[in-house]
């Protein structure tokens, strides 16, 4: 048999998870080629996959000490060390080989592999080796190397020595490349000057360059360098020149002008510059307010708000523009100014239906309501304010008939404020409030089909009401694709395995995850292009993007949901997903709950989810009391993922004893800070913890605790008497999690059967039987109980909409009937899953 065929057989066995068979085949090759380092490395890789981590590391270190030079061997050793978190060793493998053999081919392979892995330190080291060995007749390699030194010097994990050396080496390298030819080469140079603290020199170099050629990137670095140099005089003069000579009306310029002026005490002079700027642009109007922030002694404060509102009060940017400045003026004074605008535009006539509104009227009214809401937070629980918003909607909805289909109706904001009030006003019975919100927003989206905030809110509301198919309908209408699947898929897939563990949901998840399939390859391909095409100012962003996309928390949370659905549906072929989850488990180790934005992401998970977009309307703040009602449980963080994976790995029991203890510790740790989990998830974690302590630590009291957990809390999670549980996502979530606990206990008994004595095993089985019996008994009651609640609910909702003396919703009975019917069908389809448990 040829070696190629033998290698193929080994990898087939690895792919199939038959590690013993792979090892046997590899051993044969090792005997056949005793001097081949490759098969030794491959053998170590298989050992690692098979759980013999320590042996794999020991052998790999021994092999590394022999300094192999074969490319495939190096690649495997690099992979092994990376997988076990021995980052320095993974680099040393190449570093040592390159030092000893100094072959250009070897160094180039190291560089290419580093690009593929978005491995910044290796990029820095390999490009340094390339400079030493490669063709230096042009500056190409030196430029690459100086760029990599620049990027690497931003890493948090550098040693003190590296932090000191990298910027210095980089600067020396780029200075060797002089004369520099283009803006991208200058970008490296001035960035390295900045890294070395030579801020003024960087500014001088850029000024000279900008005399010859325009470049936005360098223009921005110029402002930053003068800021960092605290050269306020020059910063002031440059900004003045950008504004008045070059007419660059840019907020970065205005804000730097004011900052410099503030440091120089030149605020009066700056006021004149603003006054004399020939265009009454948005930036100029806001520059007055920015100036006031620095000098609150300025007279006529209100005048500047007035002059902004005169021009931009009828633009949607008005609210986000003014919101940061509201602290400098008393709320009442500001509202009076706004009220004057309302009065001068004769909005009262619109509200009295005496005339048709214009687009400008509408937007001014929207802004007015937003400011009112923002500045008087008590409006959130004020029924009259809800009425007022609905009156405004009614008075302006004529514009819905005359707008272009693809345009948005700004008046939808009145309804979005309205639904927040409705939810905030709800006390115990949030169900009817969710229904009311859906009726209102469904009517709105019927009239304004492309408004995506309405759709996103409907996705949330339907999900909260256990209506996956309806949530899906609105989600699909948003045509979310490609990168958006990473940032937005959490709106539909959060805790999906406990809500809709169906083949359909699995298919949706699989389709969504396809965005990650080629992403690493594509990003590294274009990352390489940034070197080849000298787009140096983009390289850092590509590396960060590659790492953030590759190590996305959303990606791994979705894989976890896929694993759980597969498990629920008794699919056994989950090895590929499990492998991915094992990667995420390692990455989750060092990830904090904070959004990660640094380049040190190669060992961390990155949270790229966009939670802001749902609140990118109304007052641009997430309102906690509302958020709590509409979201599907607490935020799933890295800690959530790590804990849930620890639980699953513990149940699988395919790891060493040491690992099991670590998994148990992770659960213990998470239970101490338990704000990541729903109540039933916490209960399940406690059940698994007690089982694990009983089995792994032989602690008999844990069995009693397990008994108490099952007896005391079961009724809580399987109750069918609480309408809120019965009609919302919590019903499926609780039942499916209890069922999952039942299956997990069974697996646990099976996996650890040697460690559980007969008597204890029987006791556990009896408890588990109690659990499944209760679950099945209560499942039978769900339909009738839901039917009772729905009947009352429908009456309440109809009455609220049709016989409300205070608000005329202009919603017909048949419309409400239609909504109820679709909710009934969708939620029954979700609840139907419970009957199959």
């Amino acid at each position, binding site marked *: 048999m040829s070696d190629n065929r033998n290698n193929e057989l080994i990898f087939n066995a690895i792919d199939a998870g038959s590690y013993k068979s792979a090892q046997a085949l590899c051993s044969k090759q090792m005997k056949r080629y005793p001097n081949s380092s490759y098969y030794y490395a491959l053998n170590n890789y298989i050992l690692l996959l098979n759980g013999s981590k320590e042996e794999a590391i020991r052998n790999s270190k021994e092999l590394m000490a022999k300094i192999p030079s074969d490319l495939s061997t190096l690649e495997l050793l690099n992979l092994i060390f990376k997988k076990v978190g021995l980052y320095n060793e993974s680099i040393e493998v190449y570093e040592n080989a390159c030092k000893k053999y100094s072959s250009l081919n070897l160094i180039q392979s190291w560089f290419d592999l580093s690009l593929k892995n978005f491995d910044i330190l290796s990029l820095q080291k390999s490009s340094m080796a390339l400079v030493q060995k490669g063709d230096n007749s042009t500056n190409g390699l030196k430029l690459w190397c100086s760029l990599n030194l620049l990027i690497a010097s931003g890493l948090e994990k550098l040693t003190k020595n590296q932090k000191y050396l990298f910027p210095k080496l980089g600067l020396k390298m780029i200075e060797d490349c002089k004369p520099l030819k283009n803006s991208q080469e200058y970008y490296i140079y001035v960035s390295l000057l900045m890294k070395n603290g030579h801020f003024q020199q960087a500014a001088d170099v850029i000024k000279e360059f900008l005399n010859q*050629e325009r*470049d936005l990137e360098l223009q921005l670095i110029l402002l930053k360098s003068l800021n960092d140099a605290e050269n306020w005089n020059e910063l002031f003069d440059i900004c003045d020149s950008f504004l008045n000579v070059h007419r660059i009306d840019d907020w*970065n310029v205005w804000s730097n002008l004011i900052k410099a002026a503030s440091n120089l005490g030149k605020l009066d002079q700056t006021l004149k510059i603003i006054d004399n700027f020939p265009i009454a642009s948005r930036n100029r109007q806001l520059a007055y307010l920015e100036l006031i922030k620095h000098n609150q002694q300025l007279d006529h404060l209100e005048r500047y708000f007035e002059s902004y509102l005169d021009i931009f009060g009828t633009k*949607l940017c008005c609210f986000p523009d003014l919101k940061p400045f509201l602290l400098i003026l008393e709320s009442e004074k500001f509202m009076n100014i706004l009220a004057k605008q309302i009065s001068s535009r004769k909005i009262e006539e619109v509200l009295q239906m005496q005339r048709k509104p214009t687009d400008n009227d509408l937007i001014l009214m929207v802004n007015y309501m937003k400011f009112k809401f923002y500045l008087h937070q008590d409006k959130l629980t004020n029924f009259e304010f809800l009425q007022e918003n609905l009156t405004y909607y009614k008075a302006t909805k004529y514009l819905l008939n005359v707008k*272009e289909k*693809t345009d948005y109706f700004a008046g939808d904001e009145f309804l979005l404020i309205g639904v927040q009030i409705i939810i905030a006003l709800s006390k115990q019975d949030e169900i009817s409030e969710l229904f009311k919100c859906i009726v209102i927003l469904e009517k709105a989206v019927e009239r304004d089909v492309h408004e995506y905030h309405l759709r996103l809110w409907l996705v949330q509301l339907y999900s909260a009401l256990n209506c996956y198919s309806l949530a899906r309908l609105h989600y699909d209408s948003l045509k979310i694709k*490609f990168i958006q699947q990473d940032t937005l898929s959490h709106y539909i897939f959060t805790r999906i395995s406990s809500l809709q563990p169906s083949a359909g949901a699995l298919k949706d998840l699989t389709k969504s995850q396809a965005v990650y399939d080629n992403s690493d390859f594509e990003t590294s391909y274009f*990352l390489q292009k940034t070197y080849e095409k000298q787009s140096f100012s983009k390289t850092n962003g590509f590396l960060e993007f590659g790492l*953030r996309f590759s190590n996305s928390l959303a990606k791994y949370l979705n894989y976890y949901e896929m694993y759980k659905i597969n498990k629920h549906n008794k699919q056994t072929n989950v090895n590929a997903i499990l492998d991915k989850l094992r990667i995420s488990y390692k990455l989750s180790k060092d990830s904090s709950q904070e959004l990660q934005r640094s380049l040190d992401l190669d060992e961390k998970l990155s949270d790229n989810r*966009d939670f802001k977009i749902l609140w990118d309307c109304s007052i641009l703040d997430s309102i906690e009391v509302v958020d709590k009602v509409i979201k599907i449980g607490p935020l799933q963080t890295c800690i959530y993922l790590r804990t849930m994976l620890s639980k699953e790995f513990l149940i699988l029991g395919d790891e060493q004893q040491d690992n099991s203890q670590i998994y148990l510790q992770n659960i213990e740790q998470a239970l101490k800070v338990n704000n990541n989990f729903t109540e039933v998830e916490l209960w399940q974690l406690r059940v698994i913890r007690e089982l694990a302590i009983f089995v792994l630590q032989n602690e008999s009291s844990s069995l009693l605790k397990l008994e108490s957990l099952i007896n005391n809390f079961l009724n809580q999670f399987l109750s069918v008497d609480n309408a809120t549980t019965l009609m919302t996502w919590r019903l499926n979530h609780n039942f499916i999690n209890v069922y999952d606990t039942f299956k997990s206990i069974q697996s646990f008994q099976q996996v650890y059967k040697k460690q559980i004595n007969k008597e204890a095993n029987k006791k556990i089985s009896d408890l588990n039987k109690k659990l499944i019996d209760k679950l099945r008994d209560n499942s039978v009651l769900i339909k009738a109980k839901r039917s009772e609640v729905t009947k009352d609910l429908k009456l309440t909702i109809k009455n609220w909409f049709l016989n409300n003396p205070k608000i005329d919703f202009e919603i017909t009975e048949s419309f409400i009937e239609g909504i109820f019917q679709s909710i009934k069908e969708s939620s029954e389809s979700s609840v139907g899953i419970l009957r199959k448990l």
Partner: protein
Amino acid sequence: MTSIVPFQATDLFTLNAINLDSLTENFQVFFYLQYLSDWPSLFFKSESPILFNNELLTTPSGYMMGKNEGHSKEWHTHITAVTISPTYRRLGLASHLCNHLQKSTEEEEPYYTYFIDLFVRCNNKLAITLYEKLGYSIYRRVVGYYSSSSGNINYEIDKNKTNDDVDAFDMRKSLKRDVNHECVRENGEKFNVLPEEVRF
């Protein structure tokens, strides 16, 4: 408050308020990356500070994707996408982004192109008016441009059968280098071409 800043690959995570718009195209990731690596200074965004949950952030309010292509007198700048978030519309931001692109490409260094062009659906009257105000004029009608966007040549398109829903106007604006205005023409809307004739 608007600043124009260079687009970075990581900005792709922040475009939802712009790209959820039904008329804004969401491209595959590699497409954005290609523009960034090939034409780094022609891909930029406008951004505004916002106060969200008591934190001062910047949010992208629009972006421009451009490229340079063509040979000799066809050496030009092409606007691939220019789009604005709904919150920041009606402020002239699209014009601001177009003007910035023009300033970046018409000078001798580094690009010095003859003209800027873009494709716009023939039925998109609002956009056509905007571009005309910015000095663009119709150079030719590309028959069936939006029905052949897959990149494959559709041999069944008849150059004489026009349809505003699927045809595009190739609109051009002559730049300094085109001293004699040879890159633009009068009555361009009557000059029909097929999609394969507008590839560079």
